[in-house]
């Protein structure tokens, strides 16, 4: 399998990045700087204000290293990409399919089958690991309900129908999500999903993890030559990476929800790391963000067996493998798009 390359996250706002030969130089002030070789880097994600030198942008573009800019709060600002990867014929096929609902449905339903399977697995894990701490009946009912939805999804013929199933699944899943938070209940609780801005600590944490995942999904899609902005489930909207959001559906429960829960339940982060602004919106502090990113990177290194390929791969490669399988389906090599099932 492809080796999992590193992602360089720049979390201090006052850092500047430049290029020296085959290295990226991270400069904090005039005296302190770190050098890292570019080869083996897959992505550079910047949460810094100062940015990077044009020479480094060029080097990243040339080597296919993703370079993304986010505000220190984790809001996506932009990406630098080089030559478009892959084949214009593949992208045209993607556009063509996106225009025909009947051809979108099988792909969209795979994404959602993966999502709901994996959401259910998050609940099942809590039942298995913390059977005495959780409300077994409620969680059991939610799990059974999701299983029914899962079966229903396989017979859907239209996108709105799929969306309706997804809506009910999300409702039931998030209605029991608070019960999966077992520690620090005074600081972390969950009522409903809020995004712009996140209105509580848990939502703020989830939003941040979703941002990291979006970036990985976009890079993976670009690397296999697909257009992250043209989706099959999510409708096209200028500026919205619809296909990246599609691809993320099945990965959210595993990559983000589950990680958010363990960070809180293991007390790796605390309520002190979050500040509520006057508007009600929540900001995460630097140290907490660093802790989250470290946990994220550790998670990516863990190995699992890919359910379809039956090959052991690090977690971090899953977005790449799924993007590849999607491209293989669009090219006609596979009879359907195989979602990632978390076991």
């Amino acid at each position, binding site marked *: 399998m492809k080796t999992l390359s590193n992602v360089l996250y720049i979390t201090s706002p006052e850092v500047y990045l430049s290029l020296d030969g085959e290295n990226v130089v991270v400069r904090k002030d005039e005296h302190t700087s770190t050098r890292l070789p570019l080869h083996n880097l897959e992505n550079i994600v910047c949460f810094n204000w100062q940015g990077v030198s044009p020479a480094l942008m060029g080097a990243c573009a040339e080597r296919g290293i993703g370079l993304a800019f986010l505000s220190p709060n984790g809001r996506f600002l932009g990406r630098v990409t080089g030559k478009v990867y892959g*084949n214009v014929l593949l992208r045209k096929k993607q556009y063509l399919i996106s225009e025909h609902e009947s051809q979108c449905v099988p792909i969209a339903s795979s994404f959602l089958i993966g999502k709901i399977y994996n959401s259910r697995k998050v609940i099942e894990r809590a039942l298995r690991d913390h059977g005495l701490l959780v409300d077994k009946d409620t969680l059991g009912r939610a799990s059974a309900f999701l299983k029914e939805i899962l079966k229903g999804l396989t017979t859907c013929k239209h996108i709105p129908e799929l969306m309706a199933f997804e809506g009910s699944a999300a409702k039931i899943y998030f209605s029991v999500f608070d019960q999966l938070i077992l520690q620090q209940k005074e600081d972390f609780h969950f009522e409903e999903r809020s995004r712009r801005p996140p209105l509580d600590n848990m939502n703020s944490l989830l939003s941040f993890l979703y941002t990291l995942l979006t970036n990985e999904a976009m890079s993976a899609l670009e690397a296999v*030559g697909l257009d992250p902005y043209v989706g099959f489930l999510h409708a096209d909207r200028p500026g919205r990476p619809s296909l990246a959001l599609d691809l993320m559906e099945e990965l959210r429960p595993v990559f983000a929800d589950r990680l958010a829960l363990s960070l809180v339940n293991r007390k790796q982060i605390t309520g002190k790391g979050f500040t509520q602004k006057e508007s009600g919106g929540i900001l995460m502090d630097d140290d907490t963000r660093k802790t989250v990113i470290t946990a994220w990177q550790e998670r990516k290194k863990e190995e699992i067996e890919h359910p379809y390929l039956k090959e052991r791969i690090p977690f971090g490669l899953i977005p790449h493998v799924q993007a*590849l399988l999607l491209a293989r*389906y669009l090219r006609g*090599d596979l*009879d*359907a798009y*195989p979602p990632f099932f978390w076991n």
Partner: protein
Amino acid sequence: MPREYSADELLPLSGIQHFLFCRRQWALIHVEMQWKENVLTAEGRLMHQRVDDPFFTEVRNGVILARSVPIASYRLGLSGICDAVEFTSSPEGVKIPGREGKYLPIPVEYKRGRPKSDPVDEVQLCAQAMCLEEMLSVSIPAGYLYYGETRHRTAVNLGNELRELVQKMAGEMHAYFERGYTPKVKPSKACRSCSLIDICLPNVQEKATSVANYIREWVERD
């Protein structure tokens, strides 16, 4: 000169060796525009960087050595760059700009490894010779392959069989390219040394698991 292909339609000549090695590999690179480097390809690239100097022309014992010579054949529909072309003084040769007398061009191709059992390198060399023949209106009976590992060059006789193979391959490459077609995989031992193995996923089709069954099986699990 009969022109079967337009300048717009020319395919990279270097692809002919990929095509012969594995048609799917060629299609992944040239139709799907995917590329991944591994140790072997990186070594090859570095070696070519050393050889590559279009402004370097050397005269040694009356032999003119030109490096990085751009070539094309509109009949084959291929274009590329010859690592080196040796021009030897010969009455069968051609006049070249700025030189006295006649010279016979002989293509020289540099390879990082050692001679292979399949004629992939010979075919590439022969295609280069056919380009030179078309451009210079001359017949080129032989060329050289230089191998980095053995540090030796071998003369290659460019016979009819090789020329027909070049023609056939070039024709097939164009047919695939026009259809935008990526052939199905035929997994082999060679897959292990292929730099595109992670893009190709040869074993995905080898197992030929139906995705529909895979989904059904997981959804019905408890």
